[in-house]
């Protein structure tokens, strides 16, 4: 078996999320260095505040200001911070019940070491220098030995220019492997050969192979070289130029049943005006120099295939 292929794969996308009224007030408050909670019907104060009571599902909108100081309810020492986490140096994850709140908020605590952290310790918010209306406007918490009896503010959650949405970037890194069947297929392609796999049960040849026959649900393994010629089974004319694609429009994209294959693959048709491409047209792969897969398919000049020959492959 050839060496299994692997390649880095990065999935990265910014999620743009709109906020409900409670979330909007809370995150705008953080921007203004005010921490807000929300009152439930039974008089508890939830921080961070949510739109609906987690117990009764009742809509809750009654915002109250709570302290920027609080008490650690549990903690965990993180000696190896990971990408995206609030601090780049070792820190404690903490759940903090802020003064005036009945529930706890998850965040990071900047402390010199695990010896300096314990449940019940007093902490306060360290505000980020630049604040935009996000949970990261709290840079982290820090140990706090000050006065516990400070009066709470009475902010009710109305601010100028409320934050109505957040953009949350997400990035995940993978090392992708396509598995055995597709690895074999890609290796053969780089030698300018198209190799499918035959189902041991129904005898169909799948190109490209995925390692399983979707009709029989069994593994395919027997390699079968197909092509290099094939038949256009169906096609479409592309009139919109794709971004970053150096191909003049209009062009034809087609399903091509390579000779010996029981499944059509798809590719671009070149070497013929777009309006002369037709079902049944006989084509062959064209490889660009050093290319690891066919650049496009062009007419062979053979007579067109009879419809009956390829109708099952449409």
């Amino acid at each position, binding site marked *: 078996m050839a060496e299994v292929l692997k390649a880095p794969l990065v999935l990265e996308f910014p999620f743009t999320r709109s906020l409900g009224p409670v979330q909007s007030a809370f995150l705008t408050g953080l921007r203004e260095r005010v921490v807000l909670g929300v009152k439930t019907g039974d008089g508890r104060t939830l921080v961070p505040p949510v739109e609906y009571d987690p117990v009764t599902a009742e809509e809750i909108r009654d915002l109250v200001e709570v302290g920027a100081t609080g008490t650690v309810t549990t903690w965990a020492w*993180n000696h190896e911070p990971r990408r995206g986490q609030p601090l780049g140096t070792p820190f404690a994850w903490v759940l903090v019940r802020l003064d005036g709140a009945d529930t706890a908020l*998850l965040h990071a605590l900047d402390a010199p070491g695990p010896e300096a952290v314990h449940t019940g310790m007093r902490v306060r918010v360290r505000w980020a220098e630049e604040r935009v209306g996000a949970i990261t406007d709290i840079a982290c918490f820090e140990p706090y030995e000050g006065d516990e009896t400070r009066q709470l503010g009475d902010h009710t959650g109305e601010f100028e220019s409320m934050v109505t949405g957040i953009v949350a970037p997400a990035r*995940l890194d993978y*090392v992708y492997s396509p*598995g055995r069947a597709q690895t074999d297929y890609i290796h053969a392609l780089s030698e300018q050969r198209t190799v499918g796999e035959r189902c041991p049960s129904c005898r169909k040849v799948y190109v490209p192979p995925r*390692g399983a026959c979707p009709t*029989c*649900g*069994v593994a395919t393994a027997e390699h079968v070289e197909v092509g290099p010629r094939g038949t256009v089974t169906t096609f479409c004319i592309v009139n919109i130029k794709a971004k970053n694609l150096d191909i003049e429009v209009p062009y034809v994209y087609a399903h091509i049943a390579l000779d010996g294959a029981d499944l059509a693959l798809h590719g671009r048709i070149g070497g013929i005006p777009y309006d002369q491409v037709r079902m049944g047209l006989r084509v062959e792969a064209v490889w660009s120099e050093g290319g690891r897969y066919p650049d496009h398919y062009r007419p062979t000049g053979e007579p067109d295939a009879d419809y009956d020959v390829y109708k099952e492959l449409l």
Partner: protein
Amino acid sequence: MHGAAAMREIAVVAFAQTDHRRTTDELSEVEMLMPVLHGVLEQTGLKTADIDFTCSGSSDYLAGRAFSFTLALDGVGAWPPISESHVEMDGAWALYEAWTKLLTGDADTALVYSYGKSSPGSVRDVLTRQLDPYYVAPLWPDSVALAALQAQALIDAGDTDEPALAEVASRSRTDASANSHAQVRGSVPQGDYVVRPLRTGDCPPIGDGAAAVILAAGERARELCERPAWIRGIDHRIEAHGLGVRELTDSPSTRLAAEKAGAFERPVDTAELHAPFTAQEVVLRKALRLGDEVRVNPSGGALAANPVMAAGLIRIGEAAARIHRGESDRALAHATSGPCLQQNLVAVLEGDPR
């Protein structure tokens, strides 16, 4: 749901799982999955065409492979079209859906499978993407960190300590010695802190694997299996997503699911608990009122093999397999999902009297 007078009898009649491994680069998801699908079909003598309903559980985020669950269907033989469904959850919840389908009488047999390939990505980070996107996910708290917060809360409450957690780890890996599918077995050092108070030994191995189960109703179950594992009750419950809202040292959702599944009506002899972290077994034992006489995780549990999205279904499969083999008469199986035991499913399985 439990105790309805005219409820159909439904049983687990076959179970198969892969050997769970740190990496399976040479296999696509469907290539990894096919052997277990064939395994349960062979155990029952059924063919694809004999399966009335197929339901699977998986998450594309694990391997970063979009629509992998549709590609996985190639391994089922989904053409001509089959009656099929998928949940972006552990396979235990796919089993729950299949169970309800059989209850309706629309199907007599169901194939349930699930798989997880964690090796291509970083599962600790991938799992942060299931968290509250407004207040929590932007901080990227990884799965070990959240479990560590729960463990510290238990230690503070006096429910456990580090030596007790080490014993859970050691017992699990020792039991896994008898489980050829397990990824980590035998004597394994507790290791260093990953996120304190959790050490490497307190955390599940990261790996790839798959599992499949066949369910059958009534007489069909008796035809397909010498000693079917009858599902006497099954229920799942969820708690608030806010970690700071929940009591992390307890699992009221597990207890309620167990109650609804009838778990407390008579003692069980075996419990397969889906506790990926040692401290979570402490929470579950308390919530389920399991005494020392109950055999907990004879398979080694998720501490021995934790293919994400399949590890919960494997708990049901392992419990059922013990009934099939005559090693248990009444077993509890538990599956969990989300951080710190957020969502919990409990099934009670029984064998016919011997």
